[in-house]
């Protein structure tokens, strides 16, 4: 009985049956369309960004980056990401947990709320904060009295970024946790584990890859957000300009090299994120499949 035969996890139907297989020319055409589209609409602009950034040589590029306002913008962008990503990590896990693991009234409403930032234009989200915290708003005078500055300062930028990026982690985790159900947690409890041990040894390992994807996406968006941040930032150079805003200002000043240099750094950060994700997938591919599958 104890045959050590290996059963591969999920190998079924990697190949489609003959009946639904397209003719070779059809396949080639489909792939051509897909790759061609990607090349023209994604790859080409990316190449242009780097090409423009280095159009006057590496010296001009370094000079453009090394400018005071640019460095301030990079720092601010990183600061905003460092604050908003962990916040949304905690929020996302909590919301996904609540939605996937138990029943309560208002669940559908919560799911709709989580999707709100996806459906509302970022500019509107920014405006909401202006209406809420602005000088002529309800809270405005009170904030002023107590010397709290939110708008046109770092707190406002962080708030707007948190608002825009909060669906990413939750959206990634909800289907995963719903599919996994509560069986593993019940098993851990029945074996004598307490609540924290269950979360630490069972729940978190089960969702870690989904969590990582969510965080990577959340981070990419947090660094790249333009609309909402643009409304609340006030565009004060060297103080409340994030990288995307700085790119726009430089571009509007006809400083193409500067604009593209900053843009290339931003694109570079995004590429690093992608490479990181791919490396993780290569390294832990089997484990990811095992955790997400069956």
């Amino acid at each position, binding site marked *: 009985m104890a045959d050590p035969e290996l059963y591969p*996890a999920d190998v079924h139907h990697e190949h489609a049956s003959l009946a639904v297989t397209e003719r070779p020319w059809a396949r080639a055409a489909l792939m051509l369309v897909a790759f061609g589209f990607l090349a023209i609409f994604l790859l080409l602009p990316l190449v242009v960004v780097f090409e423009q950034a280095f159009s006057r040589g590496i010296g001009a590029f370094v000079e453009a980056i090394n400018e005071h306002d640019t460095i301030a913008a990079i720092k601010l962008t990183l600061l905003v990401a460092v604050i908003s990503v962990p916040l949304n990590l905690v929020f996302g896990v909590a919301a996904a947990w609540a939605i996937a693991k138990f029943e309560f009234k208002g669940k559908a409403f919560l799911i709709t709320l989580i999707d709100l930032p996806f459906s509302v234009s970022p500019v509107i989200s920014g405006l909401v904060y202006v209406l809420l915290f602005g000088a002529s708003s309800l809270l405005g005078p009170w904030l002023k009295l107590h010397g709290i500055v939110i708008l046109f300062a770092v707190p406002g930028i962080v708030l707007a970024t948190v608002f825009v990026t909060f669906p990413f982690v939750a959206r990634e985790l909800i289907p995963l946790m719903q599919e996994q159900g509560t069986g593993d947690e019940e098993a*851990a409890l*029945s074996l004598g584990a307490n609540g924290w041990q269950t979360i630490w040894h069972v729940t978190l390992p089960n969702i870690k890859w989904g969590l990582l994807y969510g965080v990577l996406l959340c981070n990419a968006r947090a660094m790249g957000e333009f609309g909402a941040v643009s409304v609340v930032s006030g565009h004060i150079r060297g103080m409340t300009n994030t990288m995307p805003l700085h790119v726009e200002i430089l571009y509007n000043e006809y400083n193409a090299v500067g604009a593209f240099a900053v843009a290339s750094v931003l694109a570079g950060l995004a590429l690093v994120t992608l490479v990181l994700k791919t490396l993780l997938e290569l390294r832990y591919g089997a484990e990811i499949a*095992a955790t997400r599958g069956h």
Partner: protein
Amino acid sequence: MEVRVSNVRKEFDRFPALRDVSLDIKSGELIALLGPSGSGKTTLLRLIAGLERPTRGTIFFGDEDASNRTIQERNVGFVFQHYALFRHMTVADNIGFGLKVRPSAKRPTRAEIRRRASELLDLVQLSGLEKRYPAQLSGGQRQRVALARAMAIEPKVLLLDEPFGALDAQVRRELRRWLREIHDATGHTTIFVTHDQEEALELADRVVVMSQGRIEQIGTADEVYDTPNSPFVYGFIGESSSLPVKIEDGQIWIADRPIGLATPDLPNGEATLYFRPHDIELLDECNGCIAGTVAASRRVAGTRRVELEIGGGRERIEIELPVGHPAAQKSRVAFRPKRWKVFPKVDQA
């Protein structure tokens, strides 16, 4: 460990899943909770485990009221229907989990945990698979790892939810025999849930038949099979034929004639006669019998199944005949059930 369920009721959103269930389980017994889906058998198991709290009633472990104990405090081994193995842990880590999470005073050393795990793997006949991940095991192997994991914490009671439900027939039969051996060797009080009557009858010391949140009958395999105490148990366990009959002065009538069976204790009125298709005697002449016309006949393994039309085709029943029996070919067959039961007609809720 004895387990006593006393007048337990469980509601989900006011819908009763269990209505006033009482059950005494002796120490070391192997008990099957058998019933169709929605009968409340899994709810009862989860209540005993402490995964659910009863709406009313008490659950005793030994003499101790365990109703308000958490699942951790109850120290039960629970094997889940889909095993719920921790997919990111190796087989050995899965089995050792219950020992690893103990408070430090009671936690065995690492080496001891590893030794326990491989000992249990021996018991479930999976030695050598310590380093595998659950995804690399077959269904039957996962099932056995789940059992080893549950037994690692030295539980007072072993609870299994549809333990063989997700396996194919061959593996299922093999594991069934094997579970019985493990039970006999370790002596755990064991309760398992199943909807498969063959499994329940073959494996369990006693079978608890459940339907619609109630216990219909508790008894050994022989008792529930040979003397079902309700129409439900007759219909659910084994095969049965039933006929609408009338009772008059202690005699059973079908249409306008008596069939030669007496039931002195039942009042006059409408009733239903139940019997097993194989538990009949054929009659040459009809001096009080059930007579019918052969409507269809088919060969089933070593016997022949005959479908009879009774009373001019209003009712159809099945009886079993030896293959060579001439009655199988005759168009008219008279018989009388050897073992049977009549239940007065009640309005089915």
